[in-house]
């Protein structure tokens, strides 16, 4: 993460780098991600998803609100810094069949996670919001995969389309943002697989389907927040990241809580 001056009264613009997302920038600056996201309404409108920013996007770093806490003298006071772990969620498939109940070993930065996927081929782990790289192994299936966390680009960009097609197993060409023969083939194959006309050309319907197939919502959460299954062809809600209640946001602006009774 490049140097960010924060904790001052200056309002700064931070230029997003590859691997950044709102959570990682917020963690580096000592904010909750919701605080930073809500402080950037234009970016919020443009990107919709705080986890997927484009290098070069500008993020306004707001002023810190100084929280004051009265404390008696000659006493010891305890303060707890609230943690804001990020989540890393994967749905693992092999030729579109979920890799259910499969042993996996996931290494993210220096942390090792070892368990089994659930019945839908999903895994979910808590990670440091600034974690950058990972490596997934499924020894029983002979599958290995290197991961770059936070590097997924918006689907509105051609690189974002290439990355999603790669993740979905349709594309193995360069991630360079340029249309090429392999990409046209991959688009046609993807379109065919989701019952779109296999033109090999990029259009809004294909982008929506890519979002739906690659970034699709956690089914359990989907039950809580989204329409029933038959409406699943609809595009993602514009802002699935729930905003904090403004009052709660205000109250949690500071990340330190006194444990004094």
């Amino acid at each position: 993460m490049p140097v960010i001056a924060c904790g001052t009264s200056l309002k700064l613009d931070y230029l997003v780098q590859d691997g950044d997302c709102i959570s990682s920038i917020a963690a580096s600056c000592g904010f909750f991600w919701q605080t930073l996201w809500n402080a950037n309404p234009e970016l919020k409108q443009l990107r919709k998803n705080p986890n997927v920013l484009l290098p070069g996007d500008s993020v306004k770093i707001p002023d810190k609100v100084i929280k004051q806490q009265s404390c008696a003298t000659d006493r010891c006071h305890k303060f707890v810094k609230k943690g804001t772990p990020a989540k890393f969620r994967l749905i693992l498939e092999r030729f579109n069949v979920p890799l259910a109940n499969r042993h996996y070993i996931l290494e993210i930065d220096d942390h090792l996670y070892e368990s089994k996927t659930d019945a839908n081929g999903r895994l979910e782990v808590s990670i440091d919001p600034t974690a950058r790289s990972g490596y997934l192994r499924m020894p029983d299936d002979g599958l290995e995969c290197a991961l770059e966390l936070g590097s997924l680009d918006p689907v509105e960009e051609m690189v974002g389309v290439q990355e999603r097609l790669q993740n979905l197993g349709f594309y193995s060409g360069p991630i360079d943002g340029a249309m090429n023969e392999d990409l046209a083939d991959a688009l046609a194959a993807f379109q065919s697989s989701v019952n779109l006309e296999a033109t090999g050309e990029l259009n809004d319907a294909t982008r929506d389907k890519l979002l739906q197939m690659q970034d699709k919502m956690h089914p359990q959460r989907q039950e809580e927040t989204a329409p029933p299954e038959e409406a699943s062809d609809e595009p993602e809600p514009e802002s699935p990241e729930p905003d904090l209640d403004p009052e709660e946001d205000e109250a949690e602006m500071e990340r330190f809580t006194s444990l004094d009774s």
Partner: protein
Amino acid sequence: MALTPQQIAEMGTRRVQRAAQESTFVNTLNLVDRTTIDFVWYPGARNLNASLIDVIMPLTAPGAAPREVPYRWARRGMADIRRNLSSGRVTLPLPPGSTGTLMVFDTEWRITRTAAGVVMNAAANLQGVQQRLNVLGYHLRAPGARNPGIDSVYGKISERAVISFQVDYSLPAGAPAGSPAGPLRVRGEWTSNPGIQANLNQYNSAAAANPSAADGTALQQALVAFVGM
């Protein structure tokens, strides 16, 4: 079997998103493993890369466009993939247990990937030698027979295939890799290929025992180098 770093690099790193604890976003990775097929000249050179069919052959005119060889990969339920070969290597998405058809070089290949994967016998085993010779195009099938001839029997046809391979690759049978060429250890009288006559003459003049040519270490090493373990 674990992937090599080169295979991982070829697969590319997957770019994924983190998610906030309260969010609903996930990443979906469809880990489509691919099948790589090498087309090599027959007979090939000792080095696999050197014997890969080079499909980009510059035309005689200076500055002329390279020749491109188109191929089509068809699999039921998927849109056809049409691309051009840039070397003799083609990489195809093919799930275990499924079949597809590859059309290239004006030929058609029906390719099936077994669900359990193909495991060859050890190269030191006669059947392992036969399996690898078969992959490289050396005929083991008896005339009119239906089975491919991979039967662990070192008969005349197997022997002919072994000798042909040795001649094509100038291998001294039974000699460790890097050692000076020695006489072929063959036990047949098949001499229709003049290329092996000299070797046979050397053999005939040698007083050494005459074990099967398939026992040759250099032959087994060469087969493993080309076809794999």
